[in-house]
């Protein structure tokens, strides 16, 4: 140690800070870039479209965050989502037409949740009590949920016949039209087709649901005993056990929580696309894990946050949206996301090395 240690110390501190906030910086840089270089990116319509389109990914990623922090992984979340979407669609269709909309949606949600909870419970018991590695247990459930979803739906998406359900999925809390002014919970009446171009919606319903779920996920993870125990189990399962933490019970809860988020995502799918499809969540696995990892979680467990996962999901979604705006072939987004994941892990490893010194 000598004179140089001071210089390298402050350089280290600077690098350490960068490694902690790089994802935020990257997101900011992307938003700036697309706003300047792309036409129509930085508008209320497009920004909200990004948020609405990422709702499903983000909600599932919340559950995946808990699972990854605990040292596991949930490969089945996307297919549990699809299975829940099929079941809730089927149930909603079967209810009498006279039932109010909110009751129909609630019934759909509850049946989707129950189905998802069974899947989560099975995952949790296999992992916590029968010591099946999470990768294998959830891989098995991946297949089971997929099969059940396809069997129940006959291999085809189940259209939802409830009138107005699509409005829940694509509607906004408030609307503004320069000629007519503001209206709430529904677009202003008597607007000609031609005028619809100038109608802007604010606060999509699905985004409100996503934000509510985000808030709950964040508060539980960062403030409750359950959240703390999740980190402890991921950090040192043996130490957690010796400290009296009911590790098996917590793990079962964690996998059921992941399934819960999957069921909510399934309902969002129902209302946005007015159907329930078994393969609705097929593409979710890579992106949800990517979001969690970009957000700073280690796949060995013990680290990660809800906000970090949100940034990860935003990066993925902004990238996809921006490439379309720039008229770049959208397939490039897959390469881009793959590269960002690798960068995220490299930065995380570098940060761990700094901490050692």
């Amino acid at each position, binding site marked *: 140690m000598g004179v140089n240690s001071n210089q390298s110390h402050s350089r280290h501190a600077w690098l350490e800070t960068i490694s902690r906030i790089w994802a935020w910086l990257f997101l900011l840089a992307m938003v700036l870039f697309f706003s300047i270089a792309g036409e129509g990116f930085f508008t209320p319509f497009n920004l909200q479209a990004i948020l609405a389109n990422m709702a499903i990914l983000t909600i599932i990623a919340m559950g995946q965050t808990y699972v990854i922090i605990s040292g596991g992984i949930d490969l089945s979340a996307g297919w549990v989502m699809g299975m829940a979407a099929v079941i809730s669609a089927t149930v909603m269709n079967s209810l009498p037409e006279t039932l109010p909309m909110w009751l129909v949606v609630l019934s759909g949600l509850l049946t989707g949740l129950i189905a998802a909870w069974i899947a989560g419970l099975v995952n949790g018991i296999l992992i916590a009590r029968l010591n099946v590695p999470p990768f294998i247990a959830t891989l098995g459930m991946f297949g089971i949920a997929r099969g059940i979803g396809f069997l129940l739906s006959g291999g085809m998406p189940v259209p939802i016949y409830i009138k107005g359900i699509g409005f829940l999925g694509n509607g906004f809390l408030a609307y503004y039209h320069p000629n007519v002014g503001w209206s709430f919970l529904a677009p202003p009446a008597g607007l000609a087709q031609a005028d619809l171009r100038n109608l802007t919606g604010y606060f999509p319903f699905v985004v409100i649901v996503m934000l509510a779920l985000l808030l709950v996920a964040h508060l539980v993870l960062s403030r409750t005993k359950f959240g703390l125990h999740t980190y*402890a189990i991921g950090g*040192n399962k043996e130490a*957690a056990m010796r*400290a009296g933490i009911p590790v098996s019970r917590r793990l079962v809860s964690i996998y059921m929580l992941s399934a819960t988020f999957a069921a909510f995502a399934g309902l969002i799918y129902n209302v946005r696309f007015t159907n329930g499809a078994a393969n609705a969540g097929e593409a979710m696995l890579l992106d949800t894990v990517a979001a969690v990892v970009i957000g700073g979680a280690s796949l060995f467990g013990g680290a990660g946050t809800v906000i970090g996962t949100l940034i990860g999901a935003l990066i993925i979604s902004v990238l996809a949206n921006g490439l379309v705006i720039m008229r770049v072939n959208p397939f490039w987004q897959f390469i881009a996301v793959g590269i960002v994941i690798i960068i995220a892990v490299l930065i995380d490893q570098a940060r761990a090395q700094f901490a050692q010194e």
Partner: protein
Amino acid sequence: MNEANTHVEPVLRATGLVKRFGGLMAVNDVNMEIYPGEVVALAGDNGAGKSTLIKMISGVYRPDGGHIYLDNQEITMASPLAARGLGIETIYQDLALCENLDATVNIFLGREPTKRLLGIFKQVDRAHMLAESNKVLERLDIKIPNLRRPIRQMSGGQRQAVAIARAVYWNARLVIMDEPTAALGVPEQRKVHELIKTLKTQNVPVILISHNLQDIFAVADRIIVMRRGQKVGDVRAAEVTDDEIVSLMVGSG
């Protein structure tokens, strides 16, 4: 140490402890007492039975024979958690700490205090944890600059200190330490010796398992030597030399 000790009640008394694994007698009819404020070293070669003996006292194993008394009340422990509930705290060789969490969380691991937010939401009381952790670390004269850093950023000696602080905070009646200095450098070993002596001043008895004669003679008041499952020596540290301890351990002379 003077004869007045015999008028003080032992904190822990074990009589006729036996543990078998299949045909093997791991612990064979061992008696021991630990008095308040004593540091007792449990010495013996590998396979002598010291770990097994300790595991019976810390609730990991059920004795196959014999009795254990804590403050003169007979106790049976179904699990390590039960032992902890009685005030018997064990500091394992691997410390059983969560490296990704900070010192305050580790000290309160499994026993986190909560407070109600807005009257309904039960959240972990981090402020209380920080204040109490500061207090206990100060009591033990341990200096850790930033308690909010994850444990993995601390030195081995600081981690030992956190493990010891955890035992002390929960008002241990007896602290068991398994090879506490095994992975530490010399200055940190000294620090652990100081901590053990601090426990002594707080009247908390310590059972120390160690291979390391330096450790033993640095802190122990009494040394119990085990060989092949039996107690072969129970001597005051001041009245014995390391050679004598070694011969008791290996059975020569």
